[in-house]
């Protein structure tokens, strides 16, 4: 690989050479096989989830939205099936992000850029757009011929059809996006009758444009130039990770089918690769995997299918290209058996971390309180002396009722001796235990005054604890602050 490169070559040498390589058009060929089937399946799953999820209903009772997955920005709520999250609980998303990161690490340690090849939205939509392209403009050969030849009306029509279908898919992608943010059936109706808020149309526009441009036109350019993941994953991978590999120990030297047969008949070794270039023709990033592991390879496995089809035809063993690791190439050359080691310290650690984060999140989710209390001490003035000599402190109490129904709660205070509590705007029947009604699924903010008799021996500050009790359910929440004397 190492070859002395002069700086002149590095810099492009010639004045007229630009510093970047212009995009070379790629014409990926249709292919069938195991990995193509896996990819079709995953594509159906991912797109199905994305397009249909917002339409799924979920009964949450009266007054609550009955959409299974809903990001309700105006009301600051996030609904995910039986889970309802409040803004201060967005740390669950942090958990999800951590989980996603570890899952990526694990996938990377097991199978290289599995994410890139099978699950990345860029891959999924590009794959879909390629399918449309093949359907309208024909397979690789037909497209190359069409691009080389003159632009006939028939060709123009096919192209127009392709662009139209692309735009429809892109538009529907944007449309599905906004459905996550509002009641889907209502929004669909509003969108159709031009009653929907402008922001919905704007987002549909943005998503339509980005889907159309990225999946239709930028395609592999995104993977090669825009995406940081290929650079990062190089640091995550190790010699045990399975990568799409051309087994050059088996393939080289390349020779024709006939020559190979003759050679083998004589008992001599011959490479299995017939240099048919099928693996290159099907590659969505247009690279030649036979040049070894490279940045452009998104590990989609399509070249495996392509080569397997060739091997089947010429009657040689399959998987000349396959998921393999560096170590095995060397071991095979020196006559040793192949080794695969999916269970190793790295993968065990990732799996353990994933399990741990899952457990922590599940625990947090199951034990989260549906009644909560925050307290904020008055800053100005911090304490007030009353005419009879008692001291009063003011607080702002914020009550959170995360349940879907109104509830009656009692407010107690543990503080200085004979501390009395009064809630502004609430006439309590029981003077030292005011009761209030908390509206369902809402926060209520009230001003609370705590008065205690004062003598010189009192501490300058002492703890005060507010406790709220749901009279019906018995749920309790509390918050502490300080009682300050002047």
């Amino acid at each position, binding site marked *: 690989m190492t070859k002395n490169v002069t*700086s*002149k070559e590095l*810099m*492009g*040498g*010639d*004045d007229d050479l630009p*510093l970047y390589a212009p995009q070379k058009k790629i014409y990926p060929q249709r292919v069938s096989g195991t990995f193509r089937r896996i990819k079709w399946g995953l594509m159906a799953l991912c797109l199905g989830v994305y397009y249909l999820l917002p339409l799924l209903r979920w009964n949450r009772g009266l007054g609550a939205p009955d959409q299974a997955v809903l990001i309700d920005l105006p009301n600051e709520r996030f609904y995910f099936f039986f889970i309802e999250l409040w803004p201060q609980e967005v740390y669950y998303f942090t958990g999800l992000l951590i989980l996603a990161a570890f899952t990526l690490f694990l996938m990377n340690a097991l199978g290289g850029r599995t994410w890139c090849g099978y699950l990345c939205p860029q891959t999924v939509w590009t794959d879909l757009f390629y399918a449309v392209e093949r359907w309208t403009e024909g397979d690789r050969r037909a497209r190359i011929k069409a691009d080389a030849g003159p632009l006939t009306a028939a060709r123009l029509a096919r192209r127009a059809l392709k662009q139209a279908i692309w735009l429809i898919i892109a538009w529907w992608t944007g449309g599905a996006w906004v459905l996550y943010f509002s009641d889907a059936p209502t929004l669909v109706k509003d969108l159709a009758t031009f009653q929907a808020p402008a922001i919905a149309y704007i987002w549909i526009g943005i998503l339509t444009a980005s889907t159309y441009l990225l999946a239709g036109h930028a395609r592999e350019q995104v993977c090669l130039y825009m995406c940081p993941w290929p650079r990062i994953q190089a640091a995550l991978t190790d010699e045990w990770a399975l990568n799409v590999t051309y087994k050059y120990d088996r393939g080289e030297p390349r020779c024709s089918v006939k020559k190979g047969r003759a050679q083998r008949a004589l008992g001599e070794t011959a490479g299995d690769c017939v240099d048919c270039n099928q693996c290159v023709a099907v590659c969505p990033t247009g690279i030649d995997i036979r040049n070894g592991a490279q940045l452009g390879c998104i590990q989609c496995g399509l070249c495996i299918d392509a080569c397997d089809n060739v091997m089947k035809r010429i009657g040689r063993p399959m998987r000349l290209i396959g998921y393999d690791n560096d170590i095995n190439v060397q071991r095979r050359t020196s006559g040793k058996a192949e080794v695969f080691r999916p269970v190793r310290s790295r993968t065990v650690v990732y799996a353990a971390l994933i399990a741990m984060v899952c457990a922590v999140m599940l625990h947090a989710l199951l034990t989260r309180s549906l009644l909560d209390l925050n307290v904020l001490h*008055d*800053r*100005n*003035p911090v304490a*007030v*002396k*009353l*005419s*009879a*000599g008692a001291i*009063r402190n*003011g607080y702002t109490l914020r009550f959170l009722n995360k349940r879907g129904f109104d509830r009656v709660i009692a407010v107690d205070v543990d503080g200085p001796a004979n501390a009395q509590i*009064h809630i*502004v*705007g609430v006439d309590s029947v029981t003077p030292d235990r005011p009761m209030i009604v908390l509206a369902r699924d809402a926060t209520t903010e009230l*001003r609370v*005054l705590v008065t205690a008799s004062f003598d010189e021996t009192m501490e300058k500050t002492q703890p005060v604890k507010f406790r709220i009790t749901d009279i019906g359910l018995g749920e309790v929440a509390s918050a502490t602050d300080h009682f300050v004397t002047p």
Partner: protein
Amino acid sequence: MSQHNDTDHISGRSTTGHEWDGIEELNTPLPRWWVLTFYATIIWAFGYWVVYPAWPLVSGYTAGVLHYTNRAAVTANLAQLETMRGEKMKALGTASLAEIENDPALLALARARGKTVFGDNCAPCHGSGAAGAKGYPNLNDDDWLWGGTLEQIMQTIQFGARSGHARAHEGQMLAFGKDGVLKSDEIVTVANYVRSLSGLSTRKGYDAAKGEKIFADNCVACHGDGGKGNQELGAANLTDKIWLYGSDEATLIETISNGRAGVMPAWEGRLDPSTIKAMAVYVHSLGGGK
């Protein structure tokens, strides 16, 4: 700068001829899309000259075809805000004080409105938290010169005290020393007596009986029997623990000698009725309201 040398001998690319410390600058033109974007911004700027105010003239400026001004935009926004608030503020205007107190939504609105208006108008004297200062009552406590019910608070805000308004609270602490009504030793004695009313220590050897007599002769008319005060006249309750001007002997002597007549301005006419109402509710809810 070295003499102009067309090509860089290492990369073989042409240079601009600029050289610093042996480092030459390659001639790498900007990408075309970048240059086009740059031209587009220039054209965009011409659009601004035409559409928006742009050039200062000797007296004035070019107004632009939109005749846009920031001030007009702000005024329009404020007007919009007012119409937006209109409905709610109207509800505040028509509801009685008691109705506001008993309607959580109206109460919250009045408190919020009252708080901002208080900050703008009242905070200079009473402090941003209404904790007051010497001579300016603390509105958080339960001691009220002119009464602490919602109606009384509203009246005080509306008409003020000694404000010159026809319906303002009147009544003041007389200057017993300056006007020659009491002699200095009498003032000292009665000051100590007043301190004793609220349980404060008194000067050694002061004559309590004499103090009581002076108080009965001069002060009871306003401050009432036993010094319990009189809200009709704004006469302070001298038996409680709260002192507007201070409770030490020197301050009391000064108060008795020179009198006090603090002014609370009348807000009627300066603030609209529903705003005054909101402010009364806010002050009442600070905790001292009766």
